[in-house]
C-alpha cells in the first residue's frame, strides 16, 4: 500500500469570523443562551487575546469591555459555511471530509505535485479566494494519516511529530488527562513507551484506541463528501444539423440519458436547460422549470415545445447546430413511484402538469394561489404565491361565524375615487357617484374602522405622521348591488376626507 498524505485544516475562529464585519476593530463575540444565562460561545482573535473566554457570562464580559460587539450564535449556519468551504476545497483534492464544527480533512495523496509540492499546496489552500475574501484565520498541518494531522493542527505548535504533542491531543475527558499528567507523562511520546495493557486497565480501552489512532497503528476511517459529476449531457455532430426531426430525436436521446442518471441517483429534475450551439458560434439557451421533480422525458419535451412556441422570435438554426447540451441545474429527491391501484393521487400529477405548462407559456408569476398574510389592511392581507414554486397550497384560517359576508369578493387595486354625500359627517353615505352613475344607498352597515400601520412609516410613531384611518361601510343600493366604501381619514385627521370604493360584494 502506498503511503497516504493528509492535510488537516482548522478554522479556529470560524463562527465569529463568519459573522464579524470586515474591518471591525472592537472585540467581537457570539453569545448563546445556556441555562438561562447569556454566555459567550465563540470569540474573535482580538477578544481571545484580551482575556475573554468561551463560557464566560455576557454580563462579565461587558463589564470588562463595554465596547464588546455581540451577535447570536447560529450553529446551523456555521455548518453550512463549513460545507461551502469543503466544496471549495474540492479543487485541491477529490477527497474532502468535514470535521465539524470547524475543521476539514483533505486526503492529498497524489495531488501535491500538481501544486508544486506539499508546502506550496498548503500556501495555495491558505491563499484560496474563499478563505482570503472572508478573512478566516486558517491553520494547516500535514501527516501520514488523518487523525495525526487533525491532532497536529489543533494541539501542535508547529511540531511535525505526533509524539511531541501534549496529552490533551488524545481528547480524553479532563479527569483522564489530569491522571496521565499526574503520572508524570508529558506528551504522547511518553505515553507511547508505556505498556498499552496498563493504560487500558487504568483509563479504559478508549484511551488506547485514541493513542493508537494518533500513532497510526489503528485505522481511523474518514467519510469524504461525495463528489457528484454534474448533470450535463452533450451530443456533438460531425456535420452541423439543421433538420428539426434530427434535433428533436437527439434531444429525446439526451433526455433519456438524463433520466437514467437521475434514476440511479434517485433524483428528479426541477429545472432543465437546453443549449444549442450554432455552427457560427451563437449559443441559444432554453430554460424550463417544473413544479414537481420529474425525470419522465415526455412532459419535459412537451414543456420545451411550449417554451419554443412562446419565444418572441423563433429559433433560427442558420447553417445548423454542431452541438446540443442538456443541463439539469436544479434537482430534488424523487424515489421510484408505483402508480396506485385505485388511480388516486393522479390528480396532483394532472394539476402539476397543467401548472407547468401554463407557467412555461405565460410566466411563473401569472399562475398563482392566494395565501394569507398578517395584516389588517385589506390589500395587504394576502399575497400571491406562484403555483410553480409552491405546489402545496397554504392553509387559510377557518372562516368567521358571521352570517353575512364582511369582506367583498373583489377588491379594487387601487381603490376607485367616488364622490359621496353623508347625512352627518361621521355617518354612512346617503348616495355616491361612481363612473358617472349615481347610486342611492338603501342599506348601510358600518363603520368598520381600520387603523393604519403606523410602524411602516418613517416617523410614524409621531402624531399626525402615522397615516390615515379608514372607516369602511358596507352599503347596498336600490338595485341590490353591494359595495365596500371607505372614508380615507377621520375628520380630526383631515379637513375634507375623500371617499373611495374598495370592493364589490357578491
Amino acid at each position, binding site marked *: 500500500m502506498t503511503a497516504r498524505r493528509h492535510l488537516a485544516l482548522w478554522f479556529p475562529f470560524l463562527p465569529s469570523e463568519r459573522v464579524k464585519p470586515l474591518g471591525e476593530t472592537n472585540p467581537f463575540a457570539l453569545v448563546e443562551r445556556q441555562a438561562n444565562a447569556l454566555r459567550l460561545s465563540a470569540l474573535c482573535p482580538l477578544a481571545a487575546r484580551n482575556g475573554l473566554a468561551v463560557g464566560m457570562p455576557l454580563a462579565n464580559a461587558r463589564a470588562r469591555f463595554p465596547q464588546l460587539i455581540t451577535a447570536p450564535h447560529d450553529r446551523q449556519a456555521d455548518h453550512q459555511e463549513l460545507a461551502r468551504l469543503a466544496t471549495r476545497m474540492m479543487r485541491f483534492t477529490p477527497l474532502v471530509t468535514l470535521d465539524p464544527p470547524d475543521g476539514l480533512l483533505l486526503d492529498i495523496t497524489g495531488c501535491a505535485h500538481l501544486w508544486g509540492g506539499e508546502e506550496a499546496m498548503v500556501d495555495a489552500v491558505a491563499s484560496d479566494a474563499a478563505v482570503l475574501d472572508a478573512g478566516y484565520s486558517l491553520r494547516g498541518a500535514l501527516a501520514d494519516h488523518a487523525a495525526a494531522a487533525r491532532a497536529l493542527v489543533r494541539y501542535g505548535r508547529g511540531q511535525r511529530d505526533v509524539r511531541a504533542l501534549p496529552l490533551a491531543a488524545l481528547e480524553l475527558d479532563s479527569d483522564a488527562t489530569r491522571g496521565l499528567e499526574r503520572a508524570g507523562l508529558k506528551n504522547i511520546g511518553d505515553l507511547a513507551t508505556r505498556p498499552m495493557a496498563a493504560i487500558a486497565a487504568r483509563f479504559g480501552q478508549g484511551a488506547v484506541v485514541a493513542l493508537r489512532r494518533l500513532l497510526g497503528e489503528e485505522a481511523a476511517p474518514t467519510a469524504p463528501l461525495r463528489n457528484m459529476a454534474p448533470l450535463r449531457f452533450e451530443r456533438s455532430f460531425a456535420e452541423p444539423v439543421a433538420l428539426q426531426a434530427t434535433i428533436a430525436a437527439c434531444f429525446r436521446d439526451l433526455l433519456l440519458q438524463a433520466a437514467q442518471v437521475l434514476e440511479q441517483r434517485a433524483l428528479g429534475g426541477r429545472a432543465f436547460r437546453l443549449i444549442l450551439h450554432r455552427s457560427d458560434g451563437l449559443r441559444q439557451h432554453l430554460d424550463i422549470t417544473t413544479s414537481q421533480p420529474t425525470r419522465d422525458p415526455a412532459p419535459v419535451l412537451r414543456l420545451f415545445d411550449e417554451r419554443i412556441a412562446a419565444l418572441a422570435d423563433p429559433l433560427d438554426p442558420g447553417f445548423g447546430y454542431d452541438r446540443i447540451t442538456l443541463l439539469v441545474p436544479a434537482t430534488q429527491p424523487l424515489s421510484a413511484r408505483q402508480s396506485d391501484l385505485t388511480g388516486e393521487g393522479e390528480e396532483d400529477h394532472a394539476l402539476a402538469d397543467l401548472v407547468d405548462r401554463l407557467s412555461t407559456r405565460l410566466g411563473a408569476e401569472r399562475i398563482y394561489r*392566494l395565501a394569507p398574510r398578517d395584516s389588517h389592511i385589506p*390589500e395587504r392581507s394576502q399575497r400571491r404565491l406562484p403555483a410553480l414554486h409552491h405546489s402545496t*397550497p397554504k392553509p387559510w384560517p377557518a372562516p368567521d361565524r358571521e352570517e353575512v359576508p364582511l369582506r367583498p369578493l373583489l377588491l*379594487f387595486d387601487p381603490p376607485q375615487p367616488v364622490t359621496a354625500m353623508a347625512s352627518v359627517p361621521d355617518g354612512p353615505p346617503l348616495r355616491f357617484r361612481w363612473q358617472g352613475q349615481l347610486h342611492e344607498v338603501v342599506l348601510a352597515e358600518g363603520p368598520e374602522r381600520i387603523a393604519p400601520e403606523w410602524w411602516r412609516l418613517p416617523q410614524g410613531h409621531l402624531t399626525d405622521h402615522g397615516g390615515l384611518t379608514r372607516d369602511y361601510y358596507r352599503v347596498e343600493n336600490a*338595485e*341590490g348591488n353591494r359595495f365596500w366604501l371607505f372614508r380615507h381619514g377621520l375628520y380630526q385627521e383631515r379637513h375634507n376626507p375623500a371617499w373611495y370604493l374598495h370592493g364589490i*360584494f*357578491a
Partner: protein
Amino acid sequence: MLSQGHLHEIHAGLQDWAAALGFVLGGFGAKAGLPLVLVRSPRGIAKHLRLHGEGLLALGIDPARLLIVEAGDEQDMLRAGLDAARSSKLAGVVLESWGKLSAYDLTASRRLVLAGERSGVGVAVLRGDAPPRPSAARCRWGLRALPSSPQPAKSLGMPAIEVELQRQRGGAAGMSWRMEWDKEHGIFRPTTDSAEYDSAPPSGAVVPFPAFRAG
C-alpha cells in the same frame, strides 16, 4: 349547482360581477376538495379588480383551492382555459372575459364543449359588458343582483341575485329564479318564498337537462 361536463355562459355587468363570480364558483365548488381554475383576462376598469381571499373565505369558499391564471389576451385565455378543461380532476374552469371577445366563436366554444365533455369538468365563460353571440354553450345565463330580504334594524341580509336562463340547447328557456347565498354550502340557492318567480322548479337550481342533444 351548475352541471359538470358542460359549457355555461354567464352574462353580467360590472356591478354584478362579484355576484356572477360567486354564482359560478359556488356552482362548481360543491365537489369539495378539488381545485378550481380561474382564468382572467380583464379589460378596462375590470383590470383593477383583484380576487380577495378573505372575501372568498367569508362566502365559505376555501381560497387555497382556487388556482388563478392571469392570461395576457383573449387568445391566451382561451388556450389556457382549454388546457385546464382537458385536465380531469378539477371542480371547474372559469374564464373571466370582458368586452366583445372576438376569438370566442362557434369553433372556440365547441372546443371547450368537447374538452369539458371528455374530462367531465364544468366550464363557465363569464362575459362582462358583452352582447350575447351564438356559441356552442349548453346554457346561457343572465345575472343581476337583487335587494336582499329585509332584516331587523335595517341591516344587510344574505346576498340575493336573479338568475335568468336565457337559452338552453335542446331545452326550455326563459325561466328565472331568485336565489340567496347559502353560506353553509357555499352556493346560491333558490328561495322558496318568491311568489313572483313561480316558474322556478320546486327544488334545486339544477337545470333539467333533456337526454338528447340538439345540434
